């Protein structure tokens, strides 16, 4: 059993929580459906976005260099990081040189991927995540369970208990409004005390050298307006050619993510603010490897909207933590094995290949085809359990010979009714499900008789 299977099984064991989690996330999928229905040209937008991304990926190096030149022109400092280590070293070096002790962060899945927080904390820097959901999971010392809604796995009562312990809110207080207010006051102090602010990047514009950060809480703006130093970390795939293309993505992103027409704040940064510093760290971390793999390249189109998580019947019923990786859900299951195929070999199988992910994706990532392609790749590398391999081999041998297939089928239909119920209920099918009654004759046998009559 894969690590994912074990985690998912544990998640499902709590029936009421399972039902609640599925409903809470399905609600977001429905909000997305409603928001999308208000845009008659939705499918045209998706197709356009997908083509823009395909084009950009085909000239990625050129666009990145154009972005770099324009960002420098605007007064930013641009850094390049090959992997997570290099990224973390660069960020730490910038902070260390300026004597930064307190850093406020707005949401960045990339720095989660790179495990930047523990890296900086070990080196004596206080790191405060300022997105409410991120702050909640940071208090709990756990990773986000969703890329857009990091604390979606928690009920408001659990957050009430957490805030009682961490922020001294009254015991039993679970009113979301009051809890948010408590977090706001707490974070306000952190913003005021910070020496530097770090943000992710939703879009980097090659044509202008500017970056765009989308948030709902305005925390990116506070974190970059108060302290004099702004560090922005981005994966190489975040580039868009120009502002015209940006507009396409801004119409798709929030509608797909949360069902909002647009995020509350869409913050454009073009160079550092007066007397301030802006550093942009551009990170590869395995992305160029994916760029070189034909069947998986399209996954680099992903804008991390989370729509595929929300629609995924498996994600909704297993929870983000079951995946054991920073980006869960269908997109996570196709990205993770690039980093470590053996470790994440279970993830491409955490899917019924229902295809809903591919149909909600605002940039046409063929997610369920990628999961299938991964299964093939894992089998080729010998990373699928031997039992499965043997069953497949034997099955293929039998099915390649119609006489043998007919005998095997007859045998199964004859033997199964003779087996004691106890035995039929002692396997993965039978523990919770009955088998259908076994027919006496196969269709092939019926057809042969019909031919004689």
């Amino acid at each position: 059993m894969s690590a994912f299977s074990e985690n998912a099984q544990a998640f499902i064991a709590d029936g009421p929580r399972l039902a609640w989690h599925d409903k809470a996330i399905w609600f977001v999928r429905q909000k997305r459906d409603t928001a999308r229905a208000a845009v008659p040209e939705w499918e045209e937008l998706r197709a356009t976005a997908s083509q823009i991304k395909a084009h950009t990926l085909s000239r990625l190096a050129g666009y990145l260099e154009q972005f770099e030149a324009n960002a420098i022109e605007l007064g930013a400092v641009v850094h390049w990081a090959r992997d997570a280590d290099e990224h973390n070293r660069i960020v730490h070096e910038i902070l260390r040189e300026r004597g930064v002790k307190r850093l406020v962060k707005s949401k960045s899945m990339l720095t989660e991927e790179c495990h930047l927080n523990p890296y900086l904390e070990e080196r004596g820097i206080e790191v405060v995540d300022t997105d409410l959901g991120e702050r909640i999971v940071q208090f709990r010392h756990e990773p986000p369970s969703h890329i857009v809604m990091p604390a979606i796995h928690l009920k408001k009562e659990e957050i009430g208990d957490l805030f009682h312990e961490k922020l001294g809110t009254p015991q039993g207080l679970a009113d979301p409004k009051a809890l948010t207010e408590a977090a706001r006051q707490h974070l306000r102090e952190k913003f005021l005390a910070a020496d530097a602010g770090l943000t992710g990047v939703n879009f980097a514009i090659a044509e202008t050298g500017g970056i765009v950060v989308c948030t709902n809480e305005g925390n990116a703006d506070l974190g970059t307006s108060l302290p004099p130093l702004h560090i922005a970390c981005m994966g190489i795939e975040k580039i868009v050619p120009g502002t015209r293309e940006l507009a396409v993505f801004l119409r798709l992103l929030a509608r797909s993510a949360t069902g909002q027409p647009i995020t509350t704040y869409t913050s454009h940064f073009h160079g550092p603010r007066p007397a301030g510093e802006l550093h942009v760290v551009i990170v590869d971390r395995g992305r160029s490897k994916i760029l070189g793999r034909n069947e998986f390249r399209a996954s680099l189109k992903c804008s991390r909207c989370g729509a595929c998580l929300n629609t995924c019947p498996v994600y909704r019923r297993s929870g983000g933590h079951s995946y054991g990786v920073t980006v869960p859900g269908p997109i996570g299951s196709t990205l993770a094995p690039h980093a470590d195929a053996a470790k994440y070999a279970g993830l491409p199988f955490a899917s019924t290949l229902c295809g809903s992910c591919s149909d909600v994706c605002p940039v046409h990532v063929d997610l369920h085809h990628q999961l299938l392609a991964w299964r093939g790749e894992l089998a080729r590398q010998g990373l699928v359990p031997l039992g499965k391999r043997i069953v497949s081999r034997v099955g293929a041998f039998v099915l390649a010979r119609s006489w043998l297939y007919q005998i095997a089928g007859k045998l199964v239909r004859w033997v199964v009714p003779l087996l004691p119920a106890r035995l039929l209920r002692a396997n993965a099918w039978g523990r919770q499900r009955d088998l259908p009654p076994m027919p006496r004759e196969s269709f092939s046998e019926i057809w042969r008789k019909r031919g004689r009559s």
Partner: protein
Amino acid sequence: MLEVALFVPCYVDQLYPAIAVATVELLERFGVKVHYPERQTCCGQPMANSGFFDDAVPLVRRMADVFAPYEHVVCPSGSCTSMVRNHTEALVPGDDGVLALRKKTFELCEFLHDVVKVRPEGRFPHRVGLHQSCHGLRGLRLGSGSERLVSPSNKVRALIEGLDGLQLLELARPDDCCGFGGTFAVAEEALSCAMGRDRIADHERAGAEVITGTDISCLMHMDGLLRRERKPQRVLHVAELLAEATA
């Protein structure tokens, strides 16, 4: 006269022969002559979906060979049809026989709706929930699906909704997956059963007596849960429903 070769998925042949019988009856009723090439076995989907592409390749070639003499191939399963149409090219690239097979293979409802162009008349006085199996819905586009913003359409619905007495029910989640997923059903037993129970509950709330659909694999999974839990709803493949209604 239209002539077709019947492609009966292996699990239908062995476990649900009545569905194949109903398919033959139905096609003949609409004036189609049915052939059944007896050498057929399986399209290779179980192996391919598990990642064992090499094991599936000979079965795909075999399919192309067995069905080579026929103009149309009709199959009472969206999933197996989707395997043939959408996944065999990657397994056996550039093969003329496989390409021909992909082009001429139809799911039963799709064939009745698009090629024979029938509007079945008959009587089926029951409250019916339609389970839209994913591979038929999204792989073959038998219906528009809830994700994309396209004009609503549904070939299966179009075939059954005109039957006298049939009350087609509206579901809260009309196309969420039932959790069968082939080997997923046993490899991820807990998830699979949780998904199946949620689907059943949706049909129950809508007041279904009968749950129908294009794929008995999904229906077998839901039926297994229904019977274990001694629930009154029954599953019925759409071929059987149509054959019974138009008899």
